């Protein structure tokens, strides 16, 4: 009896002391977790999350919840939306903003021109002996070398003029030889060769940590330049840029990408942060990367002149006033009362050529519809009515499109794809859509986002994002309505809808998916 009691006690102890036997997820469960991860973030599970899934320490629901609010979801969802918006190549901010790339050697010719008299050359020397210059990058074996573009070519001509008194084909003008000598000095001070040992090391503002302009310099810490150029461009070359040698202008490439992604980042953050999805067309805020803000605070200052109100509310934000050129983090930025979600971002405006195009792009993207004429409708060549809302055939679409386009009357019409807001109060931007009237993109965004079609389209876009295809007829008929109902009940929280979609049995266990 005693033995049995002791045995019982011992067994009880062993059972209590032993580590709990932990179940391990089977392949089907792991594959479902991978599917959730890849669908939401474009990437398989991280090692840490996979380990949790295998040990069954995280449910699929919790996994979807975590992933759908993370930075990888934001990037992946933004890529999808950038494609939906029709962005095919990055916006070139050089084409839209007057960026000063520095002084060049223009106006000096070859030494033969009549204008190159003492008076002209005196002024030329004065204007060219100080100040920022146009850079060229010499690809030296040990790292990039920053020089004044064109100095090398000028040195030969200036030497001939300064030493021999000769221009290209004839003697230089009287009393100019000393001035040519000064120009020669300026050119020599701003040029160097790869072998030149008088250069100095510099970490320019666009590459404060290490050289990133070519992978061959992956382990190079700094650039080289001449002492004179460092003096003229200031500490960290702050007054100069690579706008003249755009092959190496990585900073502006990144800015262009950030500007192009702005509308999609705004959409992604609204979803990931549980904000009402309708605010993608109404919010006065936007998302900027740190380097986008740095651009607006430095070489892109002029860009703000064409914004509504010629500035933004958050002009004093630290990413603009004291940010970093390599800060890729995302920030919420307040713009102002004339802004309406993605509709007033530079990317959306530049992407759409003309007011009708802006209205049509918004209509197609956020209502999932296209303007079409009824089947069998015929154009009438004899009808030349300039009012497209009345012309035969054209009227089918334009009687809706024209009043929609009017919301953008303060934005450029066809032929100008720049980001320019016309603040003239005499311009009437009252538009009409869906039986409602209002002024400006702000009103259009509000009307559009409150239509039933917007809610349905939002669900369809979420489905496309997750499945890589449009909803089938069967799915539209059977699954759309309950999803829309749930979407509205959640105050248009699209993240919850996306979560529900990835956790649906037909999504997690599609036909033929059993390993």
């Amino acid at each position: 009896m005693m033995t049995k009691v002791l045995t019982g006690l011992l067994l009880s102890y062993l059972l209590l002391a032993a580590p709990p036997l932990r179940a391990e997820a089977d392949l089907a469960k792991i594959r479902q977790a991978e599917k959730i991860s890849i669908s939401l973030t474009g990437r398989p599970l991280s090692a840490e999350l996979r380990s949790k899934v295998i040990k069954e320490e995280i449910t699929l629901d919790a996994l979807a919840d975590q992933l759908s609010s993370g930075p990888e979801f934001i990037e992946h969802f933004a890529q999808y939306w950038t494609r939906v918006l029709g962005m095919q190549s990055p916006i070139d901010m050089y084409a839209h903003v007057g960026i000063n790339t520095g002084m060049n050697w223009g106006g000096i010719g070859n030494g033969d021109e009549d204008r190159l008299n003492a008076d002209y050359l005196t002024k030329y020397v004065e204007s060219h002996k100080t100040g920022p210059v146009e850079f060229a990058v010499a690809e030296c074996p040990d790292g990039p070398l920053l020089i004044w573009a064109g100095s090398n070519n000028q040195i030969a001509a200036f030497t001939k003029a300064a030493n021999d008194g000769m221009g290209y084909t004839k003697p230089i003008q009287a009393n100019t030889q000393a001035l040519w000598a000064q120009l020669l000095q300026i050119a020599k001070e701003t040029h160097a060769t790869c072998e030149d040992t008088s250069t100095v090391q510099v970490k320019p503002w666009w590459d404060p940590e290490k050289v990133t302009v070519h992978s061959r310099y992956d382990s190079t810490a700094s650039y080289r330049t001449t002492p004179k150029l460092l003096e003229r461009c200031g500490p960290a070359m702050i007054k100069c840029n690579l706008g003249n040698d755009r092959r190496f202008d990585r900073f502006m490439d990144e800015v262009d990408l950030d500007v192009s992604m702005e509308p999609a980042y705004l959409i992604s953050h609204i979803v990931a942060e549980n904000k009402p999805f309708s605010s993608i067309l109404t919010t006065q805020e936007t998302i900027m990367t740190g380097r986008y803000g740095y651009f607006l605070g430095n070489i892109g200052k002029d860009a703000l002149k064409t914004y509504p109100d010629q500035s933004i509310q958050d002009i004093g934000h630290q990413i603009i006033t004291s940010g970093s050129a390599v800060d890729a983090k995302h920030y919420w930025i307040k713009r102002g009362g004339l802004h309406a979600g993605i509709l007033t971002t530079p990317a959306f405006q530049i992407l759409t050529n003309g007011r009708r195009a802006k209205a049509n792009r918004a209509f197609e993207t956020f209502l999932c519809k296209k303007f079409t004429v009824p089947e069998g409708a015929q154009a009438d060549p004899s009808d030349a009515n300039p009012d497209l809302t009345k012309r035969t055939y054209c009227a089918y679409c334009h009687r809706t499109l024209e009043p929609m386009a009017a919301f953008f009357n303060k934005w450029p019409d066809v032929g100008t794809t720049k980001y320019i807001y016309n603040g003239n109060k005499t311009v009437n931007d009252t538009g009409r859509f869906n039986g409602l009237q209002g002024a400006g993109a702000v009103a259009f965004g509000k009307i559009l986002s409150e239509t039933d079609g917007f809610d349905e389209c939002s669900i369809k876009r979420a489905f496309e994002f997750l499945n890589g295809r449009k909803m089938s007829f069967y799915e539209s008929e059977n699954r759309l309505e309950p999803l829309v109902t749930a979407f509205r009940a959640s105050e248009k929280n699209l993240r919850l809808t996306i979560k529900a979609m990835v956790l649906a049995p037909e999504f997690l266990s599609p036909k033929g998916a059993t390993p």
Partner: protein
Amino acid sequence: MMKSIYLISVFVLIASCSSDRASKKGGGGSGGDVTKSDNPVILQPVQGDDAKKDDVDGQPISLLPEAGSHMRLMDARGLTVFYQNVFAKKKFGFMHCERNKPMVPADCTDSIFTRDERPAMGSFDLGTPRMNRSPSNVNPAANLTLNYTRTLRSALSRECNSLVDGELANLKANNIAANVLVKADKPSAADLDGFMKKLLGLSGTAVVLPIEAAGYVADFEKVKAAYKDGNAGTRNGFVGLCMALSMDPLVFIY
């Protein structure tokens, strides 16, 4: 004989992707199933190695998940996350940068695919035109299908050749601790299972992977036997195994 291994991998791929849906018999007509024309070419549907229940030769090969399916092909970004479990980055990055260094370092280190291959692998990239990375989004691939698998095979070919050469050298030097595929001069089913688990991030688990490892081992022997040069047979056998396993639908369909 490399073709044999490739064919085997294609077979595994197709067998895994084909639907269970009952399909119409191919070949057209009935009975003799002969296609006639002025200059007749006689086509006869036959049962082949790739036939399985409800699936016969003569049907067009489709690598797309079934219409209306919730399954998709993983894009270049996602695939690289899996592949870097077995294809280690070299000093210069992945193998496509062995000879050419692009301007943007990430092109070498972030993807096993070249920037030209990525659109065919379903990736969307706004690129940077000034830095010679012009985007290829003007006509994005409407469906991925054959270009996808061709491109995938091309990229895996680079990586697998490099992997096998490196690991065979390690084997010769009796230093196989870091090898992921070549554990001996011929593979065992356990080796292949281990490779596949490493690829999928499942090392150390008891998860059973349906990869028919024993069949691959037998196929390796056939490939090796077909070569007079045993070293070449071993090498090509391992390269074929590497590619076949790396192209398993478990990796790229989700």
